[in-house]
C-alpha cells in the first residue's frame, strides 16, 4: 500500500490519482485512495461566523467536488472512508497547528482513514502501529479490503469503509507508563472506563464514516487503567455497543476492545480500537445509499431551525441530517474528550442546505455539545463532511 502524498487538495486531483491506479488497491476492482487531508474543494472560503459567533461549516454530502473525470465507467466515484475533518496535508505542518480558520471550531486537523475491512464477519485484527512522536496523530492504516463491482446504473458507490479494522491512533510519547497496573485507582477520575469507551466510540463512529453503522455504548465488560508520572492515563478495555438507530426489535450488540491513551487534561486521546462488525457490508451500503437518495429529495432551502425541535421531535425526512451530524459531531467530540470531560450531542442548530449544480448536497450547520461535568453547551461548527464520499477519498469502480 502506498502512502499517498496528498499534494493537490482538490477532489479532482485526488480522483485523478485514483483513476490512474496509483491508489491502494482494495482488490476486486475497487480502489480507495488512502488517507489524505480533507479540504474544501471548489475554492470555498470559510464562511463568516454567524449565529452568535458560531461559525458554520459546510457539510458536503454526495459526490465529490468538481470535475467528473477519471471515474471508471463514467460514473462519479464517491469518496470512501470516513472523514470528519480536515486533516493536515501530509506531514508538512507542525503538529498542533491547523490551517488558521478564525474560529477554532472550524479548523480541524483530523486525519481520517478510509478504513476498509474484510468481507467476513470475524473481528478484524488490529494492525500494530508504530508510536509517533508527540503529539499523537492519526495514522492512516493500509487500505485494504473489498469492494464490489457496481452496476453502472448506481449513481453512487456506497463503498464506504467496510468493517473497521485496526484503526489506530498512535499513542503519544515516550515509552510505557511506569506505574503498575491497577484497576480504577481512587486517584483516577471517576468513570474512567466509561470515559475511555465513549472516546473510543466517537473515534469508531467517525472513522467508520457511515451514518448506518453508528454505535453507542452498551456496557463496559472489563478494563484497567494505569497512570504514568506525567499523569497520562492509559486505559485498556472491552465493551459492548448498540446500534445508534436500532431497528424495530433488533438486538445487535457489537463488541469492541480498545486502548485509549489520555494525555493529562489534554484532548484528542489516542485510540487503538477493534470492533466486531455490526452490520453486514452490503446492507450498510444499501442503507447509506437510501439515506443519500432521501437527502437529495429534501426541499431546499430547508425550513428548519433546530434538529431536534424543543420537544425532541425529528421529522423523519430530516433524520438523515441528524445522523450525518452525529457522524461529524463524533469527530469533534472525540477531539475534545479528555479523561475529565465528555460530550453528548444536544442539538443541531442553524442547519442550512443549498443545492449545488452537481449531485452533491451542501450542508451548513453547527452542533451544540453538552459538556460533562461543566454542564456547558458548546457551539461547534461541523467540519466539512462529504457523504457518502469522504473527502478526499473517492472510490472508483472498474466495471
Amino acid at each position, binding site marked *: 500500500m502506498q502512502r499517498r502524498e496528498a499534494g493537490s487538495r482538490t477532489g479532482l486531483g485526488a480522483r485523478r490519482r485514483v483513476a490512474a491506479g496509483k491508489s491502494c488497491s482494495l482488490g476486486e476492482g475497487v480502489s480507495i485512495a488512502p488517507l489524505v487531508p480533507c479540504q474544501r474543494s471548489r475554492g470555498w472560503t470559510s464562511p463568516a461566523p454567524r449565529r452568535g459567533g458560531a461559525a458554520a461549516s459546510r457539510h458536503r454530502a454526495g459526490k465529490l467536488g468538481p470535475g467528473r473525470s477519471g471515474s471508471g465507467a463514467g460514473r462519479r466515484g464517491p469518496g470512501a472512508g470516513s472523514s470528519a475533518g480536515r486533516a493536515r496535508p501530509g506531514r508538512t505542518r507542525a503538529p498542533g497547528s491547523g490551517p488558521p480558520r478564525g474560529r477554532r471550531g472550524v479548523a480541524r486537523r483530523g486525519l481520517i482513514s478510509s478504513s476498509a475491512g474484510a468481507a467476513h464477519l470475524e473481528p478484524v485484527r488490529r494492525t500494530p502501529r508504530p508510536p509517533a512522536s508527540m503529539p499523537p496523530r492519526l495514522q492512516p492504516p493500509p487500505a485494504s479490503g473489498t469492494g464490489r463491482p457496481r452496476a453502472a446504473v448506481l449513481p453512487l458507490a456506497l463503498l464506504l469503509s467496510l468493517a473497521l479494522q485496526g484503526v489506530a491512533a498512535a499513542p503519544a510519547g515516550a515509552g510505557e507508563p511506569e506505574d503498575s497496573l491497577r484497576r480504577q485507582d481512587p486517584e483516577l477520575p*471517576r468513570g474512567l472506563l466509561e470515559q475511555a469507551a465513549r472516546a473510543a466510540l466517537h473515534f469508531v463512529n467517525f472513522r467508520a464514516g457511515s451514518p448506518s453503522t453508528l454505535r*453507542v455504548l452498551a456496557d463496559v465488560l472489563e478494563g484497567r487503567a494505569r497512570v504514568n508520572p506525567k499523569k497520562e492515563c492509559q486505559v485498556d478495555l472491552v465493551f459492548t455497543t448498540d446500534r*445508534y438507530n436500532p431497528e424495530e426489535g433488533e438486538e445487535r450488540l457489537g463488541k469492541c476492545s480498545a486502548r485509549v491513551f489520555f494525555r493529562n487534561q489534554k484532548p484528542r486521546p489516542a485510540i487503538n480500537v477493534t470492533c466486531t462488525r455490526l452490520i453486514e457490508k452490503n446492507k450498510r451500503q444499501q442503507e447509506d445509499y437510501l439515506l443519500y437518495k432521501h437527502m437529495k429529495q429534501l426541499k431546499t432551502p430547508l425550513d428548519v431551525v*433546530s434538529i*431536534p*425541535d*424543543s*420537544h*425532541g*421531535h425529528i421529522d423523519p425526512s430530516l433524520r438523515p441530517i441528524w445522523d450525518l451530524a452525529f457522524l461529524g459531531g463524533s469527530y469533534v467530540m472525540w477531539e475534545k474528550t479528555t479523561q475529565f470531560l465528555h460530550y*453528548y*450531542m*444536544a*442539538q443541531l442548530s442553524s442547519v442550512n442546505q443549498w443545492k449545488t449544480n452537481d449531485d452533491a448536497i451542501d450542508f451548513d450547520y453547527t452542533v*451544540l455539545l*453538552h459538556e*460533562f*461535568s*461543566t*454542564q*456547558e*453547551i458548546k457551539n461547534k461548527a461541523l467540519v466539512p463532511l462529504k457523504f457518502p464520499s469522504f473527502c478526499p477519498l473517492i472510490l472508483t469502480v472498474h466495471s
Partner: protein
Amino acid sequence: MKWILFFGALIGLSFCGREKFFGDQVFRINVRNGDEISKLSQLVNSDNFKLDVWKAPSAFSRLVDVLVPSVSLRPVKSFLKSQGLEYSVTIGDLQIYHEMDSIAGDFPDLASRVKIGHSFENRSMYVLKFGTAEGGRRPAVWLNAGIHSREWISVATAIWTARKVASDYGKDPTITSILEKMDIFLLPVANPDGYVYTQTQNRLWRKTRSINPGSRCVGTDPNRNWNASFAGEGASDNPCSEIYHGPHANSEVEVKSVVDFIQEHGNFKCFIDLHSYSQLLMYPYGYTVKKAPDADELDKVARRAAKALASLSGTTYQVGPTCTTVYPASGSSVDWAYDNGIKYAFTFELRDTGHYGFLLPANQIIPTAEETWLGLKTIMEHVRDNLY
C-alpha cells in the same frame, strides 16, 4: 350497557387528552370582531384538530385561550394565518399552573395548590399539597422538579405524578397508605423564569434568570446555591458558568422560597429532586467523597427503587452517592436537605443516557413518568415504614 360504553369513551378521550398534553401548546387568540369569532368557532368545532377551549371570549376579554394538540400545531397555525387571526403562543408555566389548578379542583379533599413564593422575574411558585388530614404537621415528602429549566422531562414527570397521586388515592393500596401517614408536597417548576426562557429564547438554558451585577452573564445555578458546602468543589464562582453558585447561599429567591417553607414546616422526612439526564439514582453527598452516615440504608433503598423502576420497561439506573456516581457538586438541594435532618434525600437523573439528552421526545414522557412512579413509591413506602 350503553352507558358503560359512553363513559368508557369519555374516560378514554380524557386519558387520550392527558397523553397528548405535553408538546401541546396553548394559543391565545385575539378576536377583534364577530367575523373573527365565527371563524374561530369554525376551527374549534371542526373535529379534525381536537382543539380545547380553555378560556372563551367574554364581555371582558377578547382573548381566547385554546389548547392545540401537538399534532395539530402546523395546520392550526396556517389556518389562523390564512384567516388573519392574531394569536400568540402562551408559555409553558401557565399550562403547568393550569393543570395544577385543575388537579386541585378535581380532588378538593386531597389536593390544594399553595403559593410558596415567587421567582426573580416575579412569577408565582406553586406547590401542590396532598394531604388527608386537616391541620397539624404530618411527616412530609418533598418532590422537587424543574430546578434546571432545560430538563423538561423532570417537569413533565412531576405533573404526571401529581395527577397520578390524586387519581390513585383510595384505589391503590400503596399510595393510599402512604397518604394516610404522610403529606406529599410537589413543586413541578422550581425555576419558572428559566422554564419560560427555555420555551421562548433558549431551549438549553439551565440556570435562573437573575441578574449578576457587574457581569453580562445572567443566572445562577439553583442547584449550587443551597447552603451545603456552598462554593465548594463542583461549583463555579464565575457568573458566566453553567454551575455558577451565586453570590451567597440562598441568593436565589427560588431557592430561598423552598428553604423557608421547608424549615417553617419542620417535619419533612424525605426530599427527592428530579433532574435529567443520565438515568441515575443518587443520595448524598455531592460535595464530598466522605460517606454519609446513612449511606448504607440509602443505598439499599435506592437499589430497591431502581429495581422497581426497571421492572416496567427495563430502563436501568445506576445507583450511588452523587460525588462518585456523577461528579462533585456543592451547594445542592439534596445535600442541604440531608444536612438539615431530612434523611431520605435522593436525586433522580431521568431518561435518557445521551441519545436525546435534554430533548427527550414527547412520546417518552408517559413511559418515563410511569417507571419513575414505581421508584418514587418504593422510596415513599420505605419512609412510611421508617418514620423517625
